[in-house]
């Protein structure tokens, strides 16, 4: 017989397992602590700054006092604009890919295109937005240019989410509808799409969260350090929350004094983005639980 008994080899095998499981649990713990740590720091340093005045007043005294209202409004305009661009385009593209497209070269090219678009770095979007929307189309640095750039940025996200939502609709729905003599388009429009709507909405919300937090695409296409009044047309520049954080922390005139305001702005932005993401996560799990076919 060999030297190792069955028991001792089992012991060493289970020992390795315990080590591995320990490492695995440790990594999960580290990641959770990282998130909580970041949130805790920002909450701790920022919550004093976030008062009702902070959210509703514009900045004064070289940004050392006052609030960030124009930045909130600007971010709102930019994200609404981005979704207005990306949602119709994305849903239509997803419908084509799931309902109409044949498995051929065209579909493959489109999919590769969408995947590659998803991988383009945000600063390259900024470069493109600058070269194309701001200069070539002469929109200037404006809400329009910024929203268009952000829209292209989140387009792959929307397409992905919409595709998933459409694929989740059971094939039986379509078959029943077609069997009743309904045309393909009407089937999609009146049966498939409404069923997929919650999933599409979730994707749209996640896209909004992403667009709200991006800085590089709007640095040269829409954002200004300080606008004296709220934008009145889509050709105006705006302040925006992520850009505001960046300029206050690096390019501002009173970096140390505005530190509490920076934390406050970060807190508002995180609350906005994470709040949006949480809503989407909850919506998604609600709909998953309700689907019972």
């Amino acid at each position, binding site marked *: 017989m060999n030297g190792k008994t069955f028991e001792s080899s089992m012991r060493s095998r289970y020992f390795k397992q315990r080590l591995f499981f320990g490492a695995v649990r440790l990594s999960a713990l580290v990641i959770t602590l990282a998130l909580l740590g970041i949130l805790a720091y920002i909450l701790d340093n920022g919550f004093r700054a976030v008062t009702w005045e902070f959210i509703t007043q514009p900045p004064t005294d070289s940004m050392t006092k006052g609030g960030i209202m124009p930045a909130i409004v600007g971010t709102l305009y930019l994200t609404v604009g981005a979704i*207005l661009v990306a949602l119709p385009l994305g849903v239509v593209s997803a419908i084509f890919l799931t309902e109409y497209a044949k498995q051929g070269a065209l579909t493959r090219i489109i999919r590769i295109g969408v995947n590659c678009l998803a991988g383009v770095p945000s600063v390259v979007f900024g470069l493109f937005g600058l070269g194309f929307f701001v200069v070539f189309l002469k929109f200037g640095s404006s809400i329009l240019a910024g929203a268009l750039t952000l829209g292209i940025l989140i387009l792959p996200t929307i397409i992905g989410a919409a595709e998933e939502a459409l694929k989740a609709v059971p094939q039986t729905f379509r078959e029943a509808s077609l069997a009743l003599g309904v045309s393909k388009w009407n089937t999609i429009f009146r049966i498939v799409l409404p069923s997929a709507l919650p999933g599409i909405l979730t994707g749209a919300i996640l896209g909004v969260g992403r667009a709200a937090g991006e800085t590089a695409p709007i640095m040269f296409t829409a954002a200004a350090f300080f606008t004296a009044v709220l934008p009145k047309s889509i050709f105006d520049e705006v302040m925006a929350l992520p850009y505001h954080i960046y300029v206050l922390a*690096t390019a*501002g005139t*009173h970096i140390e004094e505005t530190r509490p305001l920076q934390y406050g702005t970060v807190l508002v932005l995180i609350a906005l983005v994470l709040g949006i993401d949480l809503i989407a996560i909850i919506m998604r799990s609600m709909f998953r639980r309700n689907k019972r076919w």
Partner: protein
Amino acid sequence: MRKLFQQLILGGFCLAIGAGTAFAENMVIKGSTTVLPVAQAALEAYMKANPGAKISLSGGGSGEGIKALIDGSTDIANSSREIKSAEVELAKSKGVQPKEIAVAIDAIVPIVNPKNRVKELTIDQLSQIYQGKIKNWKEVGGDDLQIVVISRDSSSGTFEAWGEMVLNKAKVTPKAQMQASNGAIVQAISKNRYAIGYIGFGYINKTVKPLTVNGVAASAKTALSKEFPVSRHLYMYTNGAPKGETAKFIKFILSSEGQKLVAKEGFVPLPADKKGKK
């Protein structure tokens, strides 16, 4: 189909509104972060006196401001350096006539961390430090510590002016850390006892220690008399002579009220005889 149609109409509607109001007057100011506090203080005071005005202000550096002027995307370009002849040519080739208006006087002051023993440097020492040839504080009378060189990004007029007046256009060592603004340099130096940086006079505060250059301390007096070797004008450039809202704003800055704001932000107001002329 109906949804798509509705969205198209909504979009077109928005565009229509947008295009209509795009013709409302909107003044854009971009450029130097050195001039930024002056521009912002002036903007806030101007807004109180003229509540209807729509003005947007950005930093980014003198290079950005001038580029925006050339590209036609700004009305006023703040600059802490003179416009380069290559930029003037580029502007003219695009039909832009840059007009230079001096609005204040400034000194660029080298600063170190308050824990640093060194109090004074000569221009030559500064030049060698920034070129990376002097690497340790003990070579200039300080402790045995590595010198960390902090500089501005190339879009900065302060960077250009420093390069001209101190380095004589020699190249800054590539190991220099780049910060995006005067404020960022103040922040970096205040936390770092190895570092040296340079900032506009108006940014000096208690967290950093200014050095004397060639034995001269920077002050309003020495900047004006040019006794302090690294002193310069701050400018606003416009396309041709300023008109309309732009003219009103510039006039405000050059007025005694505006120049008081200049002094309040820590810069040197223009001497009474030289206002606006160059």
